């Protein structure tokens, strides 16, 4: 199969969805040029009326997408950095997420927020976060975290076609990652986790970039333990069944989540496993997350963000 980069796969999904559905348009700062190469060339193909550059106005960008979605469009609002979501928290978390239910289901909000997330670039607290925890805390918003070029394309297509607000978070550390991506149309359903590596001693669930780190850890440990690595691909909806099925085999779970540990997704999943699959566990669940500090800039960020060695240590700790 043809190999392309993660950001090119995202680009291809935009090209195809904009070609097949005239109600799709993009709005954001510098989207005609594209900060991360995900939207390159779209303005030449679809014009500035469908690839709309805006002033630096994240609140209005998010609100514009939300408003237009109510009038039958399928807007894509580019917030550039996921950290900037907080500027539009009202529009994203309180309105987009919650208005369908609040208005008795009469209005659908088929919009997509897109932004890059993640650390390991030494950019400091405001350009490094993975803020899906507040998103998941606002029921009504779907949250997508692709880790491969194949998923990046297929999940973005599903996000654009979904009749609900979706936050599509691509990782800045994966932009140049190459992988197999089919030409033409395919869509990946939400809520279907993917087993990236089969194993029998321990299950490691790892999100986005962390999945690659977990796979490296599993490879490093291959002579000690048989590690199963699961990529949830979407956090809402979340495929709990695949995790529980895996746990029935391994009895051990490590959750690797680049978001801050306290009140994060890893804690939520831990609670769900305790509630729904407690008796499958042979050992305590281990979380490997960003530590409970602001993400500092510079080299010292490595002491806050999850590291492969910590995944290895967590696996060893519960596999003895």
């Amino acid at each position, binding site marked *: 199969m043809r190999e392309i980069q993660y950001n090119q796969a995202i680009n291809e999904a935009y090209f195809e969805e904009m070609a097949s559905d005239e109600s799709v348009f993009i709005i954001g*700062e*510098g989207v*005609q*040029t*594209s*900060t991360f190469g995900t939207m*390159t*060339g779209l*303005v*030449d193909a679809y014009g*500035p009326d469908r*690839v709309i*550059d*805006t*002033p*630096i*106005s*994240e*609140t*209005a960008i998010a609100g514009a997408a939300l408003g237009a979605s109510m009038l039958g469009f399928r807007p894509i609002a580019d917030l550039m*950095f996921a*950290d*900037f979501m*907080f*500027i539009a928290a009202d529009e994203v978390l309180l309105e987009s997420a919650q208005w369908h239910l609040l208005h008795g289901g009469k209005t659908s909000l088929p919009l997509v927020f897109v932004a890059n997330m993640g650390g390991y*670039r*030494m*950019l*400091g*607290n*405001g*350009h490094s976060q993975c803020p899906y925890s507040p998103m998941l805390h606002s029921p009504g918003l779907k949250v997508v975290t692709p880790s491969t070029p194949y998923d990046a394309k297929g999940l973005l297509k599903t996000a654009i076609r979904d009749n609900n607000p979706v936050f599509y978070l691509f990782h800045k550390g994966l932009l140049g990652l190459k992988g197999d991506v089919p030409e033409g149309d395919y869509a990946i359903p939400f809520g279907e986790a993917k087993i990236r590596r089969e194993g029998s001693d321990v299950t490691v669930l790892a999100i986005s970039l962390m999945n690659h780190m977990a796979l490296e850890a599993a490879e490093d440990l291959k002579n000690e333990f048989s590690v199963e690595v699961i990529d949830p691909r979407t956090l809402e909806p979340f495929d709990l069944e695949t995790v529980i099925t895996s746990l029935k085999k391994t009895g051990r779970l490590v959750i690797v989540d680049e978001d801050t540990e306290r009140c994060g997704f890893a804690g939520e999943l831990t609670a769900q496993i305790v509630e729904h699959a407690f008796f499958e566990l042979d050992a305590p669940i281990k979380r490997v997350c960003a*530590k409970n*500090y*602001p993400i*500092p*800039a*510079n*080299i*010292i960020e*490595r*002491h*806050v963000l999850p590291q492969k060695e910590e995944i290895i240590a967590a696996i060893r700790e519960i596999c003895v």
Partner: protein
Amino acid sequence: MEFTKKDLLKLYRNIVLAQAYDQFCIRMAMQGKLLSFYHSSAGGEAPGVGGTTFLRPDDIIYRHLRGHGVPHMIGKGASVREYLAEHCGKTTGCSKGLGGIHPSYPELGIFGTGATLGSQFPLSVGWGLGAKKKNKGQVVVIFTGDGTMGRGTWHEAANIAALWKLPVVYVCENNRIAQYVEFKDAYPFENMSRLPAAFGIPYEEVDGQDVIAVAKAVTSAVEKARKGEGPAFIECQTARFGPHGVGNPNKVGGKPRSEEEVAELKKRDAIEICRNRLLKDKVLTQKEVKRIDAEAAAEIADAEKFIDASPIQDDPAQLAPALYAP
């Protein structure tokens, strides 16, 4: 107000330094020493230097993104080498290597920056309110790009600053381009004058390539604010010679910026304009030009030595004590 010869030489020295540091930062960014990203101030040195050189040490500023605020820090008298050590992740940095691009010199009224453009405006209300309550004549000078004026936070802050007559001077460094979006694609007007006008905030437009003109306009607004006359807005028409950040494409709207337009902008280099004017007015001699250049080069060499010799901040034990104040 009239500047003395000493004032004018100080302005010139500061803008020469700003340019020298910018070239140093670009070099360090290319070498991988300067961590994260760097957004050059080339073409836009004058507003930061002119707007800060005559402030009081206890006046409060929020630096602009271009040059990561080095022109503003120079004017304010902050140790640039400590900021750049910070930017390089060194323990000798102004935030002990934890802050990266975000400067912190509270003793000089530089309290840090946010990653989101526009976060300076709400803060300007707090600083203005605090300064007013303290009643010591402190003034807040907020630097912003034209792009950042797109944020709604400006309107909230400007309204309150005007309503409460806060001592805040807003200095807009208008280079007519926000990352990849041109002014004409961001605003339905030619300059910012209507925005402060809505709140009755006095507005003045200056040639942002003329550091002396900027200094005059800002100093005059600052003196009025000091006397309790309330906020002001100065728009400096300036330029961005290069791309948004080191390594970024120099594009707007998906297309390369017009080479003719950039060449035209480069004809109005703020350092050259200041130098020629001061030479013509016999404030500066060729000998002094050379001396000031040499001093700037020596300061850069000294900064580089300091940064290179400083240890990397990589100590996790620094995190816990830094989280909460005692």
